């Protein structure tokens, strides 16, 4: 059976990471490469997924080390074991790690896949969801970065063999991280992880209190359109769209956003789309599964009341 590598990073298992294991197990026997300063939690989580082996990287301080460290070790492991595929989460960081491994191991790469099958054919949804493309890597290890929320995770019990790999010799000295100020810890899920995203546009006039309250009640992340960022109402990290983040949640709720092509480019693969807009002609309604013509503040207020 062919070997499939997946990359797991961070202090705990993310939903994107769990999905990599599910996708990988379709095509072969999964090895999870774990890059974490506290790997125990990820090793334990791997045993709840279809994972047959874990390789825990040691000798690297992942908080202080650039992504070049991770990509160098990963490339070394790919060269050593020649897996059929390497699956990585499609975050900005994941794509850059995958890109560097592709160069080092002379392997083809597909990014932002929404599906991958047993034959390692990857599906992408491109041009704002207007085309579905299936493609395959034809050289080296198939390196595929996967969007999150694309497959249901069912847990199992596995007992992966645990291996350690000393990465100390691969620590990047080119880039020095001088400071990392973590954002204020919020109970709200991140845009990448959330299964529901509630976004506000210019129509909010900068008043995000109801959007945040509604989002918190339904466990959603908060996003925004570009004018909101340009007006300084919300930080850039929350911008959804062509020049911001691309999200593909189960459900995207657009409040006071008109539905410009550059905004849709960042969210059109959401499974269910809801739009609240006072203008019945707003383009967002053309792609909405559920549209409410009305004032966003009134609608959110009554939705919040209904939830409480």
């Amino acid at each position, binding site marked *: 059976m062919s070997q499939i590598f997946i990359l797991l990073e961070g202090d705990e298992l993310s939903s994107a990471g769990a999905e990599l294991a599910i996708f990988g197990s379709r095509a072969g026997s999964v090895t999870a490469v774990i890059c974490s300063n506290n790997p125990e939690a990820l090793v334990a989580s791997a045993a709840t997924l279809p994972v047959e082996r874990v390789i825990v990287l040691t000798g690297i301080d992942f908080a202080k080390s*650039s*992504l*070049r460290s991770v*990509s160098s070790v990963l490339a070394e492991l790919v060269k050593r074991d020649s897996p059929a595929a390497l699956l990585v989460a499609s975050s*900005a960081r994941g*794509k*850059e*790690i995958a*890109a*560097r491994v*592709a160069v080092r191991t002379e392997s083809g*790469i*597909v*990014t*932002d896949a929404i599906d991958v099958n047993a034959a390692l054919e990857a599906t992408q*949804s*491109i*041009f704002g969801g*207007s*085309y*579905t*493309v299936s*493609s*395959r*890597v*034809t050289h080296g290890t198939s390196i595929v970065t996967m969007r999150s929320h694309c497959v249901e995770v069912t847990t199992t019990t596995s007992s992966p063999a645990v291996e350690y790999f000393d990465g100390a010799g691969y620590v990047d000295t*080119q*880039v020095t*991280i*001088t400071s*990392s*100020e*973590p*954002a204020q810890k919020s109970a709200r899920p991140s845009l*990448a992880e959330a299964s529901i995203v509630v976004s506000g546009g210019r129509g909010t006039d900068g008043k995000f209190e109801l959007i945040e309250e509604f989002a918190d009640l*339904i*466990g959603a992340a908060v996003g925004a359109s570009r004018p909101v960022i340009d007006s300084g109402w919300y930080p*850039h*990290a929350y911008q959804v769209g*062509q*020049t911001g983040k*691309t999200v593909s949640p189960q*459900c995207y709720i657009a409040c006071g956003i008109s539905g410009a*092509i550059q905004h849709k*480019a960042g969210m059109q693969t959401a499974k*269910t789309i809801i739009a*609240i807009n006072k203008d019945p002609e707003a383009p967002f309604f053309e*792609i909405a*599964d*559920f*549209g*409410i*013509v009305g004032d966003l503040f*009134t*609608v959110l*207020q*009554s*939705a*919040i*009341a209904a939830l409480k």
Partner: protein
Amino acid sequence: MKIAVLIKQVPDSWAEKKMGSDGLLDRAGVDAVLNDNDEYAIETALQLVEARAAGDTVTAISMGPERTTDAIRKALSMGVDGAVHICDDALAGSDALATSKVLAAAISQGEFDLVLCGMEATDSRMGVIPAMVSERLDWPQLTFASEVVIQDSTIHITRSTESGVDRMNAQLPAVVSVVEKIFEPRYPSFKGIMAAKKKEIAMKSLSDLGLTPMDAWTKVLTSTPKPPKAAGVKIVDDGSGGEKLVAFLKERKLI
């Protein structure tokens, strides 16, 4: 300081993009423009050499078919000094790996101190070229910068993400990509547009870079237009809109 800015010509982001029968983007059908994200990199380069010390130059480097010249002229009219255009029929259908190899080879010919890029091209949206170029050159990679400061031979950047604010630095030469929040790109002035006509664009073929044609390492198997989405339910809020919203979320088992 000698700065290279990597730029790409892409279909206008306002236009509907279509696939050709070969599984590649049909570029003939839509207006081609300078990738929006690259304008921020150009602006950053121009601001970094604003004082124009002796030897300061900004060079645009682009790989693409002949008509890429239009995007290059736009960069030149913004104030970029000169350009390298890698244009070769053998490059049609190149993947990111081949593209990064070509760009890295062109950069190596120029003795640059800094390579600036946009965060991604609005057509392919892979966002992998800066990392690949950095890997090929073995230069440090500082990506998604929202602030760039150069002190002596060290470049410092700030990157803001949802998880926080990171500051990092590296020795030049380095590859840096910038996000749109860094600077508002300038509009080309009339003077700039006139001056651009006289600026030099060095045309290079693959063999000029010492390279031979490369196969793409990915193959498109099928590409299917998605059937237009059937319009969903649209209601007018009569006071019960919020309740109906919650009911809809529950019905779809989203909450």
